[in-house]
């Protein structure tokens, strides 16, 4: 269970970015989470609100985009998605270590309140 420390790192990055942008708070946090990141999504979602307490991120929604494992198969010469717990090409059965994606654990963006909201019709 290291998701709390992951959540604390995440909140620190987001809080700092929000401050730099002069935002008062953060509404949404966008995160890309790879199948091989070693992070359990449910555990991270559980820890996230705890980690946000007392920061600009408090109350923000965590939007997670899951990234499947994709490896480059040397014999098929294409990018393939192996079955879970395997690095075997589903097309030809060869093993491949060339990971194209799946290790992601990154903040891609945050949504903050617009300082000049569009005028509402009366």
């Amino acid at each position: 269970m290291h998701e709390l420390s992951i959540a604390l790192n995440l909140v620190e990055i987001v809080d700092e970015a929000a401050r730099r942008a002069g935002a008062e708070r953060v509404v949404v946090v966008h995160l890309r989470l790879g199948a091989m990141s070693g992070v359990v999504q449910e555990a991270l979602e559980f820890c996230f609100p705890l980690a946000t307490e007392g920061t600009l991120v408090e109350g923000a929604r965590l939007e997670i985009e899951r990234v499947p494992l994709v490896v480059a198969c040397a014999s098929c010469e294409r990018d393939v998605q192996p079955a879970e717990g395997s690095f075997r090409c589903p097309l030809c059965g060869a093993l491949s270590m060339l990971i194209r994606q799946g290790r992601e654990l990154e903040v891609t963006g945050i949504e903050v309140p617009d300082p000049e909201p569009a005028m509402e019709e009366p």
Partner: protein
Amino acid sequence: MPSLSTRLLEIRTGVLSKNDQLAARLRERFRAAGVLALNLVSSPGSGKTALLERTLTDLVRAGHRPAALVGDLATDNDARRLERSGAPVRQIETRDMCHLEAEMIGAHLDAAGWNLEDLEYLFIENVGNLVCPSGYDLGEAVRVVLLSVTEGEDKPVKYPVLFNSADVAIITKLDLAEACGIDLALMRRNIEEVRPGIAIFETSARTGAGMDAWLTWLTARRMRGDAM
């Protein structure tokens, strides 16, 4: 109620980027000092300390200069055990942390006051855990995953993330293989399934079986020096 109008700020930052930066600095320090740093990961009880004890002892006897940082949730039992090898050893008590981070390595190296130039090998024994240490770069040149014959053949496919992150796998407690009825060929296949092309050693710290091959690999890897 008017819907909240928001603007999107693109960030694109790795959540562990701070750790990665500290690890990169450590890696550069190790490289400059000619130290081969190794990060030992495994589940609790798979024999990290026993293998390390034997490795340190054998290296010291052969005239090499290894040192070790040992992570545990509590107690300095492992450090005291490893000190008998004659190598400098420092315990990292993580309190409740389930893994080591680069910041701890830097802090403990400074506190230990070791001159890296005087060392050839730095072994970092991580906290026994097959999940959490995988994402944390400690600046090591080699990540070693240990798997004891008592753990069963299918552990690698159950924990692919950690096994995949390793550069070397060591099957430990080989002296118990027969008693456990382990299928070693299957265990090796399962390691390769999640980490194709990995170097695999089979050892027993108790009998010394396989230690020569492991030590030969270690010294050759340090001499080669690339990507250290």
